[in-house]
């Protein structure tokens, strides 16, 4: 047992230098001096949010940090708890984190129901059942170098949450006993949500915890999928719930609601290719030639038609603007057209063609008027250039006439 001796020596050194020991945290001092695994916490703790708030090792682990004598510092009589058993970690952290009075001193806006939620999660229930392989607080938040959620280096910072979850959920070996897939992260990385989060740095874009919860993590059930998606896509959810699909999809096996068409983790940019064509999701249930397939094709044609008309207007106006023409009024109107397209795509979730038709017609009216404005601006540009050419020609003639007049006058002199 060399470790206690190694720990003891620097403590002794500190003890013989009067006045230096009292000010130091003996836990950090001693653990920093050892060479084995016990050195880890002392090395990591400098980045820990608890230390930044003025807490010390002893505030979690107990003991007497003012004593240089390991036997005194780590004495159970001094409240020393040591390293908590894995099954007790959530309870260990909740000592403070579930105490509103205590938390108010350091993070008044922080929630204090994490432990309560954790107990309702799949992780929490399994841990309570003795399964120590499931995630506890430290598996997501790290240990000894725990950072605030808003810290970009924290494993639970929104941009890093998916990667943190994937450490276990993409590990086939770890997931084998639970018989759950391990491709979620891979699929999620192809989604519009991941794109929003990582490419546009939109921290509001959903990551694992946004749909599954964080401390109360569990997969949404069939009946709650649309509610989960609807927490952001509110209007889509409202229309979907009134649609014929709601009742049908709720009864479907393997998940229901929005994910029947949009998938769960691999939510891709929606397009009319989902309605018609070889990749149409409708064709999974509705055979070609049937009335519903025809309705889907009709709605897709409307949406594509509106999109193409708006793009045509956009191109015309951009070309006119590039030529220096003032087309800002038409460009503002074009925004209304784009909004109509969004409304039409939204109305599609009601699966009622009449409801889709209304915004499509509104958008088409905008597309036509802006196209006309673009064509007029380009025609006006040509008229201006022609006018310029005529003016320059006339000016040239005037200059030539003056030149001739001068020559005649000066040759006469």
């Amino acid at each position, binding site marked *: 047992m060399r470790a206690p001796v190694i720990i003891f020596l620097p403590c002794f050194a500190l003890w013989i230098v009067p006045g230096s020991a009292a000010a130091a945290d003996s836990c950090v001092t001693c653990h920093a001096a050892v060479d084995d695994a016990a050195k880890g916490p002392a090395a990591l703790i400098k980045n820990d949010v608890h230390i930044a708030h003025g807490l010390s090792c002893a505030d979690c682990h107990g003991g007497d940090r003012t004593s240089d004598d390991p036997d005194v510092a780590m004495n159970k009589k001094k409240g020393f708890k040591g390293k908590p058993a894995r099954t007790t970690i959530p309870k260990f952290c909740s000592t403070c984190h579930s105490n509103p009075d205590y938390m108010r001193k350091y993070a008044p806006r922080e929630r204090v129901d994490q432990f309560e939620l954790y107990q309702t999660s799949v992780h929490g229930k399994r841990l309570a059942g003795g399964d120590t392989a499931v995630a506890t607080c430290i598996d997501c938040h790290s240990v000894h170098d725990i950072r605030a959620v808003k810290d970009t280096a924290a494993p639970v910072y929104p941009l890093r949450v998916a990667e943190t979850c994937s450490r276990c959920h993409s590990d086939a070996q770890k997931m084998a006993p639970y018989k759950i897939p391990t491709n979620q992260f891979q699929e999620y990385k192809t989604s519009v949500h991941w794109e929003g989060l990582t490419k546009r740095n939109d921290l509001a874009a959903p990551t694992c915890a946004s749909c599954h919860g964080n401390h109360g993590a569990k997969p949404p059930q069939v009946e709650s999928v649309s509610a989960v998606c609807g927490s952001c896509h509110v209007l889509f959810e409202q229309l979907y719930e009134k649609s014929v699909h709601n009742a049908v999809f709720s009864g479907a096996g393997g998940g229901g609601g929005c994910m029947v068409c949009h998938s769960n983790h691999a939510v891709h940019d929606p397009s009319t290719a989902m309605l018609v064509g070889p990749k149409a999701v409708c064709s999974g249930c509705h055979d070609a030639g049937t009335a519903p397939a025809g309705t889907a094709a009709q709605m897709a044609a409307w949406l594509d038609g509106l999109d193409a008309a708006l793009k045509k207007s956009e191109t015309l106006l951009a070309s006119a603007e590039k030529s220096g023409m003032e087309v800002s009024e038409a460009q503002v109107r074009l925004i209304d057209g784009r909004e109509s397209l969004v409304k039409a795509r939204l109305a599609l979730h009601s699966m009622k063609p009449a409801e889709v038709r209304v915004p499509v017609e509104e958008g088409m009216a905008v597309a036509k008027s802006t196209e006309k404005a673009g064509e007029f601006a380009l025609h006006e540009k040509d008229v*201006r*250039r022609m006018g*310029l050419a005529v003016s320059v020609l006339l*000016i040239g003639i005037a200059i030539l006439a003056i030149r001739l007049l001068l020559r005649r006058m*000066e040759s006469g002199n």
Partner: protein
Amino acid sequence: MSAAEIKAKTFDWFDERLGLRMARDMLDHKVVPLHPGTAWYYFGGITLFLFGVQMFTGLLLLLYYRPTVAEAFDSVRFIMTRVEFGWLIRSIHSWSANLLIFFAFVHMFSVMFTHAYRRPRELTWLSGIALLGLMLCFGFSGYLLPWNQISYFATKVGTDVAGTTPFAGPMLARLLRGGEDVGAATLTRFFAFHVMILPLLTGGLVGLHLLLVQKAGMSTPKHLPAHDLSHMKFFPNFFLRELMVWYGVLALLGSLAAIFPWELGEKADPFASAPAGIRPEWYFLAQFYTLKLIPSHVWIFEGELIGLAGFGLLALVWVALPFWATTKPDGSGGRARLATGVGIFLVCYLVTFTLLGYFK
């Protein structure tokens, strides 16, 4: 009574009241010296012509422009999209303003390099410098009037810089803004400067400048005394040539306005963040870039203060040119070479820093 007699009687009637014969005699006797630098004489005329274009187009714009925060931008858009040839008038006004300042600089440097400021033309030089200053004020005040995003923030930066002037800075900034910040009061104030105060001052000063030019006659290079040179009659010979140049400038102006119409931008939003790469008009870019290069603090002084002091000193040297770059009575020697050196330095500085300010 024959037509010739009616014409002669009418002329006599007006001559008795207006002194037309005297003006005609003056025009008959006014000559322009001919030498390799005669072409430089046209630039004063070009500047005058562009000032006339500004007055004319400005008056037309006044028929529709509304100087309030709520209406300024929309009224300019109305001019550009709804008023017949409004786009042309507004674009010519904006392009002409820029060409005017450019040609005013060319005219000023031509006077500087040909030492045309020397005795007895000191007052002509001073009135010319004052006119150039007024043109810059026209540019600064007119820039804000469309009330778009770029002009709003550029005015904010410009008035901030004015606010750092020692002692009078805060008062000057408040005077320009009509309050603590750029807003409705600034717009009406700039409008008043642009369409009333500055035109009145400029009109008077242009008259004085032309009178002084007429009084002292055209300057010739110091090594070419006027009596050794051949001359051209001002009217009609020189005037017709000047007219050809004006036509050329008009063609250039029309081409710029038709091919590159002056853009309107987005309506100013005081609560929005300043657009990226905000910068003033090109004629303030050299000073703007210089201020950007100066560290925020130099020893115990603020960087901007050092910059403004430097500009002030340079302006003083420049304005006082006829008084320190004196020549001997025969026109030789003196500090004329130093003045040429200062001129070359100024041109190099303005061109380099304007380009750096534009591209960096």
